[in-house]
């Protein structure tokens, strides 16, 4: 199997895969997203010849990413930060060159508060556009109802988190305005005293 076959198969899904990896790891660390992506790419490259149906490459590759991520989450923290074995060439720094907007970062913050499997299900559905059946295959669920239930809970929780963030932001804005007015009034009072 030539790597060109693999890269040809990867090309149409490359962008989505990188976005998925980054959103999956949320805002923990950019390097974690790169590690997950590198490990998933190496696994996919080594097992590409076992993929019997090339048309299912997308589901297969996202399944590898998801399982790699969930497996990493289960590992102890100190194992997660261990470097790769010597002899493994490091992947290009693909995430550093693309800046992220504040809105993007805020959304990642909200996603970070979801459970890993919930987050993965939501991203697979909303971001990568997989069907419920495909998500069931990727996440290894026995029934569709489990996927539906997980998606529903993820949406509700994300909605709740975002609403709370909004309330907090609004409250902060009101407090800030009041604080500013108080300072302004005090300053005017001091000026008036000074003039006299």
């Amino acid at each position: 199997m030539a790597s060109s076959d693999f890269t040809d198969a990867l090309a149409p899904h490359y962008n989505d895969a990188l976005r998925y990896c980054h959103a999956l790891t949320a805002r923990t660390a950019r390097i974690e997203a790169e590690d997950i992506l590198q490990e998933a790419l190496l696994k996919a490259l080594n097992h590409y010849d076992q993929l019997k149906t090339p048309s299912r490459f997308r589901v297969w590759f996202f399944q590898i990413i998801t399982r790699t991520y969930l497996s990493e989450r289960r590992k102890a923290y100190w194992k997660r930060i261990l470097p790769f074995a010597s002899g493994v060439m490091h992947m290009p720094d693909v995430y550093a060159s693309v800046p992220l907007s504040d809105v993007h970062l805020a959304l990642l913050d909200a996603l970070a508060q979801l459970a890993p499997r919930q987050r993965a299900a939501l991203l697979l559905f909303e971001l990568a556009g997989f069907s419920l059946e495909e998500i069931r295959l990727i996440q290894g669920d026995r029934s569709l109802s489990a996927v539906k239930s997980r998606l529903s809970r993820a949406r509700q929780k994300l909605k709740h988190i975002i609403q709370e963030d909004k309330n907090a932001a609004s409250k902060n804005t009101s407090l800030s305005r009041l604080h500013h007015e108080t300072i302004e009034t005090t300053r005017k009072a001091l000026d008036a005293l000074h003039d006299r």
Partner: protein
Amino acid sequence: MKPSKPPEKPLTRSMTDDRDLLLKPLNEPDYQDSFDEMAIWLQRVQQAQHARSTQKPPLQPPAWVQTWRFKLLATCLLGLLIIGFIPIQEEDIVGYLIYWTAEGSPDAVKQEVAPLGLPIAQLVAAPHPEAPTNRFILLLPDATESNVEMWMNQLRSNNHFADVQQVTLQETINRPIYEAFFAQLPGSLSEGFLSKASVDRMRFRTLAALHVSAWLDTPDRTYHLAFGTRNDSLWFSVRPYGQVSTAQERLFDEVQRMDRALRQLQGDAPRVQQARALLESHLDSLETIVMTGGH
């Protein structure tokens, strides 16, 4: 002019109302520019893997050595090996002793016993203390139980012999579990399995299990020998006829040395070695004295 409505912040939208807008920021980054670089990296990785796979691997154990079945088997065998060498204490038969009483001279009895296949070279004759008969003692260190049983039956079937008895000489010994296991296997495996050294050791233990006393009756110039088991459960006294000649007296000295050696067998290892050497060098002397019956 209608004021333009400020764009609503995507995060404030309801997910159920407009999911695409909510998650749209996640789809904004474009990483496509890095794909060529990534493709080159993948190609290098595969080339490196190919190079590693074609290289002759360094000395490594075969794959089957690393399987869990092999590891389990090796662990079990190692465990058995360790357990097999744990010493255990058990009662071991180190030989047999047959004795009977009969009238007539020792030579006549020997001639009568010879056709039975008994090792008459080890036959000891002693006068019975309370009867006009002789007591005959036969020490059988290498005999098997079946042989002893057969000889007992043959001796009992002879009308000239009376009070035919058998004594099993036992000793508490320490030996590894594996040896105890093989020793208890049926048939002749014990003889086949045990080396000649083991058989020799058995013979040695038989002699060591016996307690030998010898003393010289100075006024009569007669000597006495007595054999007994170590726990003194059975004693045989041998009092040969006649006076001791000078040559026999020298032999008797040899017997006494052997007696001392046998007594030292219970000491520590160097002494046991010394006693064994003495025993081996003077065993012939003892047999000569016993077999000649003092004549």
